């Protein structure tokens, strides 16, 4: 196999797969057989092109080869095949108008027929039109491969047995059927643009498939403004792809992105398509969404964004496409135009919207406005809510960092700009969070074993455990040997006050042997009113959000003041969680 042949076959796979399969399906009237022959043709191309060179028209070569193979199979199996139901062919009535006589269109309209479920439409389109393998389609939609294979088989069986016709719909149904196809393309793109779960933010194969489909539709139906609108939208959003992650893999918000890395070629292509789409007819949903993306694309900086224009476009979009998600985006734009309080007010009515009850972006948007208003505790709650609602690792890392930021703010500063206390005089404990790639049970096992605490210590004061054994219930006491230069060596008795296996563990320290507070002249030792707590929130089966909290709200005022409300511990707490992370990473090898 020559490298040239491999590259040529890969290119032909991207460019010609749909055409080869669709033209073969028209001959076989059987999608399974067409798929098989198409696959065989590509396999044969690898051999033949290595031997005789790459043909001038690879697509035509592949189509001829696939159709010849299909003819052979049909001749051989004609007796058997006569008994099987076949695809319903185009009737011999006059062909579709506007030059829509294209096999790829027949294929895509059949795959996206409204009698098939949306899941089936997406799966069939990716498999048959885009040429993704069943395993790839299964991975994209997070289902086991046999499940996806069964879904595709069932859909193909329905096409044949219910006689879904293999044709371009007649003119009176064309508009609604094009919308159904565009719905599938849009869904493939959005699934790829921010993968709902997993380690990567973007699934490039899905994004490429969606843009490829939109380009193909645009090529075949150049006069359809809705198609131009969707292609414009996809290109304008995709133009920002390279700036969505920082060098360290952190999610970059639109406001933070390096606009110099936006793809200007895609932006001008998108804007030209959009202009074309808007000129031809009243705007469609996708064209308005593309117009919003274009306003962003053309703003030199985030600060220069024309928010009034964007709010106006969202108003138009709400007329064309009323949806709670659009209302959410509009509310965010209002906040950017009129300030965080206006944004928060615009978001408030959406809290009662059932469709948004599990939509993480609503929580994230509120959290961000609350953070700007310096309402730290409420912002933290909203970030925690958003974290609970997304499974994408990159988004989670971003939200965890933001949560940590707002928790780091000192006690007593949770006031709105007017200076009115938000929650009485309640003091917020100091907390630090970190996402650790280990199951909660593994982390808990370390935390519940005092002998391992020296490995975690970020303060440098711990010397070792006196007690020999693990903590197993509230009421347990474990004694630690400590060293602090002004005191020398001493001990602390830690009383376990919170214990929920694999979820939560907390203790209150009490001065022990050698500590100045236990000298004969002083009062009976007390537990000071300090509390250390670790809270573990599973983040999928293999990761955990660990939040370490230091709460000294019950300590005497001077003690609190001497520790700056606990803030002096933040850096050692951060260090502890880093060590815990490293320890878990070592244990997992």
């Amino acid at each position, binding site marked *: 196999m020559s490298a040239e042949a491999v590259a040529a076959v890969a290119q032909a796979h991207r460019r010609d797969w749909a055409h080869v399969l669709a033209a073969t399906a028209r001959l076989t009237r059987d999608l399974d057989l067409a798929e098989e022959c198409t696959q065989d043709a590509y396999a044969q191309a690898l051999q033949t092109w290595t031997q005789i060179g790459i043909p001038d028209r690879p697509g035509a070569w592949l189509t001829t080869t696939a159709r010849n193979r299909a003819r052979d199979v049909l001749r051989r199996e004609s007796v058997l095949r006569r008994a099987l139901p076949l695809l319903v062919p185009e009737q011999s009535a006059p062909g579709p108008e506007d030059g829509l006589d294209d096999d790829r269109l027949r294929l895509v309209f059949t795959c996206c027929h409204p009698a098939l479920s949306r899941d089936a439409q997406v799966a069939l389109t990716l498999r048959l039109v885009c040429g993704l393998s069943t395993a790839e389609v299964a991975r994209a939609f997070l289902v086991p491969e046999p499940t996806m294979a069964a879904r595709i088989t069932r859909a193909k069986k329905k096409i044949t047995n219910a*006689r879904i*016709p293999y044709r371009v719909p007649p003119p009176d149904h064309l508009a609604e059927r094009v919308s159904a196809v565009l719905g599938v393309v849009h869904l493939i793109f959005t699934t790829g643009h921010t993968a709902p779960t997993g380690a990567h933010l973007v699934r490039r194969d899905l994004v490429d498939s969606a843009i490829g489909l939109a380009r193909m539709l645009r090529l075949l139906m150049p006069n359809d403004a809705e198609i131009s609108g969707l292609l414009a939208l996809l290109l304008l959003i995709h133009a920002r792809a390279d700036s969505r992650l920082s060098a360290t893999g952190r999610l970059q918000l639109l406001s933070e992105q390096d606009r110099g890395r936006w793809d200007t070629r895609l932006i001008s292509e998108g804007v030209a398509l959009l202009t074309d789409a808007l000129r031809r007819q009243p705007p469609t949903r996708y064209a308005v969404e593309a117009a919003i993306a274009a306003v962003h694309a053309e703003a030199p900086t985030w600060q220069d964004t024309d928010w009034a224009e964007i709010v106006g476009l969202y108003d138009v979009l709400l007329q064309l496409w009323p949806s709670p998600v659009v209302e959410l985006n509009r509310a965010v734009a209002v906040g950017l135009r009129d300030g965080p309080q206006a944004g928060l007010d615009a978001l408030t009515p959406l809290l009662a919207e059932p469709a948004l009850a599990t939509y993480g972006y609503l929580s994230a948007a509120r959290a961000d406005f609350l953070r700007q208003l310096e309402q730290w505790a409420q912002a933290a709650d909203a970030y925690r809510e958003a974290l609970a609602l997304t499974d994408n690792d990159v988004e989670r890392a971003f939200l965890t960092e933001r949560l940590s930021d707002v928790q780091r703010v000192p006690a007593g500063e949770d006031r709105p700009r007017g200076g009115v206390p938000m929650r009485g005089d309640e003091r917020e404990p100091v907390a630090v969070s970190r996402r650790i790639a280990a199951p909660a049970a593994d982390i808990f096992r370390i935390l519940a074993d005092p002998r391992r605490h020296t490995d975690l210590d970020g303060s440098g004061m711990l010397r070792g455990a006196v007690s020999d054994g693990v903590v197993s219930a509230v009421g347990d006491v474990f004694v630690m040997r400590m060293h602090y230069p002004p005191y020398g060596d001493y001990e602390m008795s830690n009383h376990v006050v919170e214990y929920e296996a694999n979820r939560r563990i907390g203790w209150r320290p009490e001065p022990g042997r050698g500590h100045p507070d236990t000298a004969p002249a002083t009062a009976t030792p007390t537990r000071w009113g300090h509390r250390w707590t670790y809270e573990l929130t599973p983040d999928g089966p293999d990761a955990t959000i660990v939040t370490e909290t230091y709460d000294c709200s019950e300590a005497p005022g001077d003690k609190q003041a001497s520790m700056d409300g606990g803030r002096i511990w933040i850096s050692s707490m951060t260090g502890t969680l880093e060590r815990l992370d490293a320890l878990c990473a070592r244990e997992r090898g």
Partner: protein
Amino acid sequence: MAKYLILIYGDERQWAAMSPQEMQERDEAHGAFYAAAGPAVLDGQELEPATIATTLRTDRAGRLTTTDGPFLETKEAVGGYYLIEAADLDEVIGLASQLYEVSAGHSGVEIRPVVDHG
């Protein structure tokens, strides 16, 4: 050509509560459907309510049991059917979407292809 069975489903209590005027509208609508579908309709009937149905099964001992009522106890029941002959699913959807029960809130139709044994 292929055959399809169109099953008309709906809430029987709502069908029973129809006013004479609504019933007349419904009957006229079915008449219009018949006329529009022409020879495509091979058969079509309204059914007595499911409460009048009789269900036969065999118990574990192999004895025939007769039950008063439908096979499945559901709020929505089959109230009628059409047997249609058509070239493809699009053609049947085009016809069936004109049926009166498709536009009434509590009812709808299910299209089932008939297996062709050649």
